[in-house]
């Protein structure tokens, strides 16, 4: 397992994609806070708003790096090299998952650190730091991890660009489907379930108002962990039975 992680992290750090996406992730909050400070000199709170406004886009950035990290392993057939020398498929899946979760964590933390840095420097924060925001940050990490686990599942089971394309649009697809279903059902119970059980809906609760902490935050975190566990178990089961090229 350690060997697979060493191989995976080396491959990650050797790829330009990781750094290019990181520059984008860091560049967006920097540019927005600078832009906000130039055009709205006396307005505060832009940086607070930005703390969770980008969570949907963040999943897209993560999918670019972690999705292609896995897909390229299959497309270049380099996954063979690991299987041939006796690494189990379970370990290979876990190694890919850990590398992907690391990417998600690095991108999310880098985004927040840049935002906090520029926000403080340019005096664009109204509420940060406060307990509510830190709680929402914790929930955001779990939401992002749930998405990342789904990316690893999709890319490992589909093993082609189609899997990557779905990952790229997963947040949009989930949001659209859930909205349509809820609109069709017109049920408050269904709405309550969606709020707790769907990461894309979870983040909408505090996306535009960072100091509102969802009532069921604990349950939401458990659901997100559950998504990670279920997708991982399902992903390993499918991968173990798959015939590779």
């Amino acid at each position: 397992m350690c060997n697979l992680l060493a191989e995976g992290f080396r491959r990650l750090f050797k790829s330009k994609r990781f750094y290019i996406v990181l520059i984008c992730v860091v560049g967006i909050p920097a540019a927005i806070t600078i832009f906000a400070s130039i055009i709205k000199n006396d307005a505060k709170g832009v940086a607070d708003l930005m703390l969770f406004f980008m969570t949907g886009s963040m999943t897209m950035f993560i999918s670019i790096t972690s999705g292609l990290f896995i897909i390229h392993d299959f497309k270049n057939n380099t996954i063979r090299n690991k299987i041939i020398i006796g690494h189990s498929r379970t370990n290979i899946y876990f190694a890919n998952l850990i590398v992907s979760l690391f990417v998600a964590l690095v991108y999310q933390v880098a985004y927040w650190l840049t935002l906090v840095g520029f926000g403080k420097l340019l005096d664009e924060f109204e509420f940060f730091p406060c307990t509510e925001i830190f709680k929402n940050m914790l929930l955001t990490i779990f939401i992002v991890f749930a998405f990342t686990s789904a990316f690893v599942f999709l890319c490992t089971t589909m093993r082609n660009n189609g899997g990557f394309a779905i990952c790229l649009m997963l947040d949009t697809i989930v949001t659209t489907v859930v909205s349509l279903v809820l609109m069709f059902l017109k049920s408050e119970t269904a709405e309550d379930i969606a709020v707790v059980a769907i990461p894309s809906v979870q983040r909408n609760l505090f996306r535009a108002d960072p100091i509102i902490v969802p009532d069921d935050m604990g349950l939401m975190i458990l659901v997100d962990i559950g998504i990670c566990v279920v997708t991982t178990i399902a992903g390993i089961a499918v991968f173990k039975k798959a015939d590779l090229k």
Partner: protein
Amino acid sequence: MEYILQTQQLCKKYGKFNALTNLTINVPKGAIYGMVGRNGAGKTTLIRIITGLNNPTSGEYTLFGVKNSDKKLLEAKRKMGAVVETPSLHPEMSARDNLIQQTKAMGISNDNVDNLLKLVGLANTGKKKAKDFSLGMRQRLGIAFSLVGDPEFLVLDEPINGLDPQGIIEVRETIIRLNQEKGITILISSHILDELARLATHYGFVERGQVIKEMSAEELERASRRYVHINVNDTAALADVLKGMGAEFNIISANEADIYTPVQVTPLVLALNEKNCFVNTITENHESLESYFMGLVGGAQNV
């Protein structure tokens, strides 16, 4: 005899298609085992199964004496290296970086990487990325990849496909050197039977997902028919003489013929001389691996 790989009644189905049907092979330790078979015969499927890329539908195999159902198989597979069809490389990395990547996956030091690059003739590729390599260079890097970790068993699927004559010679010499100097057992599949005949010490003839015959190179030598290839100025006269001698023969062209029955050269030449038929050349030959294989599978076209 000690065997590195043995399969028993191995079957693989893709939907309704039987890729392997009760396939049984035995690869002896220290051998260069040549798998001979036409397209779709099941050679690559077998290689994919023993390398762990595909799961068998039924049957079993043992690698280094460990059964495929045994959890210790993963340990045994660390002693194996393989190139399956196209080499599996990281296109954005140099040859050296590619091999270091594999040492990381194996958890071993990368001290031997430069020696491996030298062995396969890629020591001077520098920072050139694998995506810019020629087919021959990729193939050789693929072999180097499979040699990381000093394997005792090497599986090469069509290793000379697409190589130029120089590349074929280099790969052939590398394979022979690995077998003779390092004692690595090699399982090799190839369509280029003439090339395989220069390498293999043992053969397995695969047809429609089954091994129809296994034999050593010596056994093949004995089983292959000897014949005399003769070049004359008049094959009609030659045919008359050979008929008179009761020999089995085959006229190939206006000047060439193969004689399968052992004949004494002097009486034959004297008899031909009487009919004003002059002999240009006479050579004794063995039936080629290709001819033997064709005879075995019933004269298939697509080898």
